[in-house]
């Protein structure tokens, strides 16, 4: 054990303290480079978003066969939404048809009703 201690002391003595380095100073040039990099990232992100948005719109318009009116749902029907429909429809008949077609209920299968779901659950402990 004693010999080990001596060897360890010798080992530690071989280390010499070094003169500390100067603290890193942020220069103007570095600032500019960082800003440039950030700017480049922002531009890249914006471009990517724009490209994605354009493609998305193109896909939607490609698959949508209906008119602009058909993409709107006049729910709830208020005086304001009704007037909007009348203003946008090409004719009174078209507006009325649009309104009635829009009324078709999205039927939910009974098996998906809240009541059905609750009765399926085992609520007994």
């Amino acid at each position, binding site marked *: 054990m004693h010999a080990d201690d001596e060897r360890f002391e010798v080992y530690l003595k071989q280390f010499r303290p070094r003169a500390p380095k100067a603290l890193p100073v942020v220069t103007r040039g570095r600032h500019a480079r960082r800003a440039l990099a950030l700017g480049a990232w922002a531009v890249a992100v914006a471009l990517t978003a724009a490209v994605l948005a354009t493609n998305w719109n193109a896909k939607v318009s490609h698959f949508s066969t209906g008119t602009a009116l058909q993409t709107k749902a006049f729910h*709830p*029907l*208020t*005086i*304001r939404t009704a*007037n909007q429909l009348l203003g946008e429809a090409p004719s009174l008949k078209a507006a009325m048809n649009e*309104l009635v*077609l829009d*009324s078709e209920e999205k039927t939910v299968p009974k098996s998906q009703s809240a009541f059905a779901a609750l009765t399926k659950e085992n609520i007994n402990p």
Partner: protein
Amino acid sequence: MNPVRSIAVIVVFAGLFVGPAAAQGGPREQLGENAALRYWSAFAEMQDSAMVMHRIPGLDDPSVKELFKKNQAALNTMYRGTMLPDCDWGIDYQLGAEAPVEYVRKALLLGNLNALYVMYLETHGDTEGAVRALVAGLRFSHDVASGGTLFATEAAASLLMDQLPMIPNIVHAGVSPAQRLALQKALAQLGPAGLDWQGAVKRELELYRGTDHALSAKGLTALAQITPLYVGAMSDPSVLPRLQGMIANAPLDLRNIMPNPQRVVETKQSLENHLAEARGLLQ
């Protein structure tokens, strides 16, 4: 307790219970005579009514017969509603332009269903039934506009213009004097213009004064000038060019919400033409 005091207590309690009930008697009776409430019951009874808006295979198709069978209760409730003198949809004008008018959508469905039923009865030789359904349908369509804005009135006009052309078919097939009289009476009850266009315009433009439209001071001033002319255009279409000029020069906030008077006048005139044709045929 002494007998006099007991009687007094009984009288006081009786008064407490009977008084409010007696006071409510009048309005309750009036409420029961409101056709709109029957119509709402009919809407609730409708089943698969959206089918009338799709291309149907033919009036003899079993699915069409089934549709009428399913909706017989709804149609009968609507017919009973048309017997009542008043129709108040209870539009909450305090909500301004956000007032719900869902009843118009339901009414269009029920009205179209009834119109299809008239055709069905007529093609199956049931003239009595067809006349009865058509008379009720005309009255119902008229009631759709009751107390509403231009939208409800235009919807009612659309329903009427769908049904009025059915009169020639029924008449040519042969109607009894009583059936002819029933049709004449139904048309007379619609009034000369069919609907109250002036009232609808007034209610429509009155809405624009509300805070929810947030019209500028200039917009409100222009609205005050335009309103009498717009109402006047309903009885005198010759003022239409002047009215359109005023709207074109109105501030943008008003111009953006103003209903197209040309469209309204054209619909009104078209309905009047349909009415004149039907009346002429029945004379």
